[in-house]
């Protein structure tokens, strides 16, 4: 399915050291009819920016690494400047399938929701056991801090209406970004819907997520506690 002419859909891909897969992600999105793609290279040490530009994406570069949340926000700000009606965020490691974008943006294009949260099924046979457990814990933590229960609080595959993008004002730079979005959906009373998405657990994406799980999880919880106390 190609984009509706009336909706300018921009795809935002925050990327850090993803040079080996970012080109495939962009090409796949193009193949599904989504040509407006912004890759935010978050201070990578490898040629992520060059690979993304070669694949046909607009590339914005952070001079230094500021985290996934900061990069995503940069992409959203850029899409707003470019006149986007709907903004989709997805990961740069290839775990998200661009074929799901159409279903993700459908509720927003139809005016039924302000935010669509891509939701990975916890019963997916391919999902590793440690991912199931860590996602369940993350959902509980997110619910504690955000006050809103969602089935997949850590999914980076989401879509926002222009109005939602204008309303959301995140300050979380790192992996606590996803939870802060959930908190602000509740705070600003945005209409949201959860859309099932498929997810590809490749050896590449798993090697990254495994490294991130425990340490990043602790940091995320710390940041959420800190934000709750200080903001």
């Amino acid at each position, binding site marked *: 399915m190609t984009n509706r002419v009336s909706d300018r859909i921009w795809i935002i891909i925050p990327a850090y050291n993803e040079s080996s897969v970012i080109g495939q992600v962009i090409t796949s999105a193009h193949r599904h009819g989504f040509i407006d793609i912004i890759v*935010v290279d978050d201070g990578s040490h490898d040629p992520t920016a060059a690979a993304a530009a070669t694949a046909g994406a607009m590339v*914005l*570069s*952070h*001079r*230094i690494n*500021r*985290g996934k949340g*900061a990069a995503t*926000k*940069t992409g959203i*700000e*850029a899409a707003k*400047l*470019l006149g986007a009606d709907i903004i989709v965020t997805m990961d740069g490691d290839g775990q998200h399938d661009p074929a799901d974008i159409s279903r993700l943006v459908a509720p927003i294009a139809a005016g039924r929701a302000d935010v669509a949260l891509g939701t990975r099924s916890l019963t997916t046979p391919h999902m590793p056991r440690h991912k199931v457990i860590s996602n369940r814990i993350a959902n509980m933590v997110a619910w504690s801090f955000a006050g809103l229960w969602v089935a997949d609080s850590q999914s980076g595959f989401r879509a926002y209406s222009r109005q939602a993008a204008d309303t959301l004002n995140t*300050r979380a*730079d790192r992996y606590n970004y996803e939870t802060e979005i959930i908190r602000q959906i509740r705070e600003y009373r945005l209409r949201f819907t959860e859309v099932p998405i498929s997810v590809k657990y490749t050896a590449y994406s798993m090697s990254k997520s495994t490294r991130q799980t425990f340490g990043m999880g602790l940091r995320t919880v710390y940041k959420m506690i*800190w934000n709750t106390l*200080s903001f």
Partner: protein
Amino acid sequence: MSINDLQFYQIAVTAISLVMIYFGLEKFLRHEAGQSVLKLAVRMIVWGGMAAVALFPDITDTIAAFIGIEGNINAVVMLGFLLIFLIIFKILSVVERIEQEISALTRADALEKLKK
């Protein structure tokens, strides 16, 4: 008082204090960036004080009697903890603010390309 009369913690605290004072003096004498007489003086007072209290614990009684808090030392300790927590909180707030500013600056730099 001989070294045989000292407990392990007294020797350890004194040694650490001397090392920290040495580093401070070395930085000051090399005129490293950010070093000042005030900073050196604070370092000497804090670490020198710790070494003095470790070697001569009775000093605390004398000080407590002198400033009139002898009978309420627990309250003083609690206030000390509170002060430390407040300082840590303040430092974390400053770090957080600086992090936010760095992100905003990095973002503005990245978006400059679109605004040209």
